[in-house]
């Protein structure tokens, strides 16, 4: 608050500066906003408009492989004539083929289950870290962040060698005589769950940790003193207080997991169905750009609500930071 008062007090002196300096500062100020703004508009927002437009086009054997191309080669009238050829055929096609519907549903279900699993694995870790002696907390934090720096692809790849029928996990279990026959884990949905939980664990632990670390531990002690058993103290105090972290962590895992490609492709094999993989195949194997665009548009619509929730959570965290 005092800062604002000071700013007000010095305002006249800034006004007295030469006009040119002020104009210069204003220009620089505007540039700070305009440069990243225009970049994101051009490389993030406009591409979505193009995706939507192409999802309404038809497949063609040409480069680019869709029609109408909508350019100004035939003049303005040609550009607008092209609009008449746009239609929703690709979306109708998506509803008619049960494969796509199944892929969407499976992706959402897999992402939801994986998110819950990640929360179950991540919560005890984050809780343990928040309760750790303050001297070793930075080291623990570093250890959670470090895998995030190593390649996603490599971390997924590492699991192939572990989960294979002749892989390390089966070798271990067989030598301990826990199982008699190798387990089939690779190329199943179980492998996808393991892959997602493993790859996204830091995204869950970090927000959980930051909200658990801020918690006032004396609240738990007060509850204990008043005769509250530890489990109900957890559900009545700790968990509700960590809820912002839980929500942020779940969104950070769920949203990318729905459209995940690398994990279902490398660990799930050909027998599993997820929409990110479907889109990839539609684009690279079938070279059907309009249908893959339609798949992308529906996926984006599906994720609109979670993405908006995520943005709100971010904005809120930003406000609290101030």
């Amino acid at each position, binding site marked *: 608050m005092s800062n604002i008062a000071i700013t007000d007090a010095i305002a006249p002196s800034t006004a007295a500066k030469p006009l040119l300096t002020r104009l210069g500062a204003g220009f620089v*100020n505007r540039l700070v906003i305009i440069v990243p703004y225009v970049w994101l508009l051009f490389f993030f927002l406009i591409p979505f408009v193009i*995706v939507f437009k192409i999802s309404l086009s038809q497949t063609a054997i040409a480069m680019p492989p869709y029609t109408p191309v909508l350019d100004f080669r035939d003049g303005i009238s040609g550009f607008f004539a092209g609009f008449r050829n746009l239609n929703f055929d690709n979306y109708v096609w998506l509803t008619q083929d049960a494969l796509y519907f199944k892929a969407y549903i499976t992706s959402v279900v897999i992402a939801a289950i994986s998110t819950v699993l990640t929360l179950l694995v991540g919560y005890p870790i984050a809780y343990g870290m928040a309760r750790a002696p303050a001297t070793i907390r930075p080291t623990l934090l570093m250890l959670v962040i470090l895998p995030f720096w190593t390649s996603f692809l490599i971390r997924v790849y590492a699991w192939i060698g572990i989960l294979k029928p002749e892989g390390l996990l089966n070798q271990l279990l067989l030598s301990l005589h826990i199982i008699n026959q190798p387990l089939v884990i690779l190329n199943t949905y179980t492998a996808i769950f393991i892959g997602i939980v493993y790859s996204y664990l830091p995204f869950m632990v970090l927000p959980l940790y930051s909200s658990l670390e801020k918690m006032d531990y004396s609240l738990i002690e007060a509850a204990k003193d008043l005769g509250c058993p530890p489990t109900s103290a957890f559900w009545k105090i700790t968990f509700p207080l960590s809820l912002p972290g839980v929500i942020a962590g779940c969104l950070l895992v769920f949203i*990318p997991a729905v459209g995940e490609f690398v994990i279902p492709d490398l660990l799930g094999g050909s027998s599993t169905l997820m929409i990110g993989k479907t889109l990839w195949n539609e684009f690279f194997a079938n070279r059907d*750009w309009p249908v893959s665009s339609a798949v992308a548009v529906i996926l984006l619509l599906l994720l609109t609500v979670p993405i908006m929730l995520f943005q709100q959570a971010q904005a809120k965290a930003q406000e609290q930071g101030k």
Partner: protein
Amino acid sequence: MNTTWSRFNVTSIVLGFAFLYLPIVLLIVFSFNESKLVTVWGGFSTKWYVSLFHNQGLMDATWVTARVGVISATVATVLGTLAALTLTRYTRFRGRILFSGMVFAPLVMPEVITGLSLLLLFVAIGLDRGFFTVTLAHITLTMCFVAVVVQSRLVSFDRSLEEAAMDLGATPAKTFFQITLPVILPAIVSGWMLAFTLSLDDLVIASFTSGPGATTLPMKIYSQVRLGVTPEINAACTLLIAVVAVGVIIASIANKRREVQRQLDEQAAQRG
């Protein structure tokens, strides 16, 4: 405060970290395997590293990836820092909600969507796919991560320092470069490193936006992984992990040193 670090807490941390690190450790161990079978130990050997350096395709891909990473991380750091300044300093301008939406959405957007949409943009404006388009795509993705990292530092920045500098007659530009920039520099450096590793790591967006002659290392690794797991890929992955680990360790040591120096300076200032 009485922090009880119970046995349960210790166990969950130990198990959690074992889960996080064991796969990577196994991957590194088996890169030194004599046998071609990745999962059967046949004695210590570094022959896969030797064959790695004779794999011209892999070497070319490494060079492409390094160049894309350095260029895109550098541009993304500049743009991301500007975006962070915009988010924290200019709370009122037209389209601010749209702007913050465009900064936060790419963080969670499924990569297949980002990749596809960027490719369609490049085709629509007639840009040939290759080195340049991958770099542009990586700048767009990573600048948002830089923005978030730098922004978290800017939020806790004491703005009275800037005001003091301005009062003493410094121009806004001088204030920025002499006061603001040094304070947020650690965040900018870690933003750059994050951008670089994200670029190094990216398979999906690169696959969409790249063209002939600009195969990146993840694309190369992916196409080989699809054919089967080999110790040579393990060796390539180990080297990649080593590069990143060394970078992170150097950065954290440098950070710690700066922190110690700052504390010494503060103590000296208080005494003097």
